[in-house]
């Protein structure tokens, strides 16, 4: 069993230009692990300081958001096409509230003080 995984342009700086991989992963956690083993340079960018996968990276399976399919519980089917896309505009702050700490007005958090200008 294998699935085709399409990586976004934003990853390519860390994957030596690789855009597409074949994977034998059975589910999303295994796939992420496999991507990190294949592209060690990408690992530090995929996860936040707590080791959590950044929430603004979205996964789609055959056109459907994986969250509608059970997310981590979804078992990949042979021939699935998995698409990885960073949220186009938003998504969630990876570090929760701690990412809005010091500095001034950010359009996204709306607070006068956030770290955007550091």
């Amino acid at each position, binding site marked *: 069993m294998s699935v085709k995984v399409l990586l*976004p*342009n*934003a*990853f390519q*700086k860390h994957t030596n230009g690789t855009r597409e991989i074949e994977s034998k992963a059975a589910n999303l956690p295994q796939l992420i692990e496999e991507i990190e083993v294949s592209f060690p340079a990408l690992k530090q*960018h995929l996860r936040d300081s707590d080791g959590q996968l*950044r929430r*603004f*990276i*979205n996964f*789609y399976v055959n*056109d459907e*958001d994986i*969250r*509608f399919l059970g997310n981590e519980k979804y078992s990949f089917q042979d021939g699935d096409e998995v*698409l990885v*896309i*960073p*949220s*186009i*505009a*938003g*998504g*969630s*702050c*990876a*570090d929760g509230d701690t*990412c*809005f700490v010091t500095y*001034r*007005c*950010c*359009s*996204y*958090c*709306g*607070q*006068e003080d*956030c*770290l*955007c*200008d*550091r």
Partner: protein
Amino acid sequence: MAVSYELRCRDCGKRFPNEPLSSCDECFSPLEVVYDMDAAKRTFTREAIAGGPSSMWRYRSLLPVSQDYVAPTPAGFTPLLDAPRLAKRIGAKNLFLKNDAVCLPTLSFKDRVVSVALANAKVFGFDTVGCSSTGNLANAVAAQAARMGFKTYILVPADLEPAKILNTQIYGATLVRVDGNYDHVNRLSSQIAERFNWGFVNVNLRPYYAEGSKTVGYEIAEQLGWKLPDNVVVPMAGGSLITKIHKAFHELIELGLVAEKQVRFFGAQATGCSPISTAVKAGTDLIEPQRPNTIARSLAIGNPADGPYAVRAIQQSGGWAEDVSDVEIVSAIQELAETEGIFTETAGGVTTAVTARLYAHGRISRDDLTVACITGNGLKTTDALAGKYDVERAIRPRMADFEEFVAQHEVRGVAIEAVSAVGGQNVG
């Protein structure tokens, strides 16, 4: 001299020169435009703004364009109307409507964001622009791109209202109907923007595009006599508009154009697509995506990109979010038209119905100065009103027929007795 601006990752803070890019190559977070606010203190003044054009470009010192930029099509600076009749109906006393149903050139607030996005598309040298859209954005891109000489590709969900499809095609845009909902369309657009060297206004031009929404906030403050309202009620699709109005108010405070004030932000959604209001009610900023099912198609984004930021803006301001049924949306469209003479699309029905509920539930106090944002025009979604009005049989061109007609009807709530009183013995 232009106020300098550039892109910055809102998560890791990495800075980028101005380019068509929407996410950080280090942490994949979204980018936004940041300005030199010290320079803006000199250029973004009440006097300079008053001397500017009667369009959103009077605020160009805090928009990502060169200081001498002249937009080929003016957009924005729409009326802020007091709404005493609607207010009376819903138990309000100090209600205003920001009426982007008459925003030019295509009758929705999307004209604002597209103006800014396409200005930047020119700077970046694109010959083709596009967008994914629930309709209003498609109209706005198609119209302004035609005037600026761009080739245009526009992707929409296949079930979009016919008027919004026609209002895109008329400008010569290439329309691609996608068999899926907006979230499917959006995902495909992000792939296309990576494959083709095109400027997609809400993908690779998104940081610039989103800044255009701030002008709604600037205008509200200026039109209130440079003061901030107590509350704003804003419809939410992707969640960007509410966060950008929030940003606009904070910029005005920072630059000293208005007195500091905690404005409460209220978000409005349709129950059939309510991921943001659901999160607000649950007290979390975790957005669970939904499959949209509502007549308010312009708000039917089940995976709102700016959802978490909208939630945060609402929660931190002491506001709230509500969602209303399709039946309530249609009633609210009628109510707004009958009381204030404003014909809004389904999204405006959402805003009006939610505003009414916020007063009814005591979330907004009767005496508060409240601004509800009407973002689109009803002529685009007339199918939502199908069957609401009978087609009257025609009368012959004879006074007797007319008198009979009047006798059988109440006209706009005026009973036949009242007509008799005015018309004297001829009515009977």
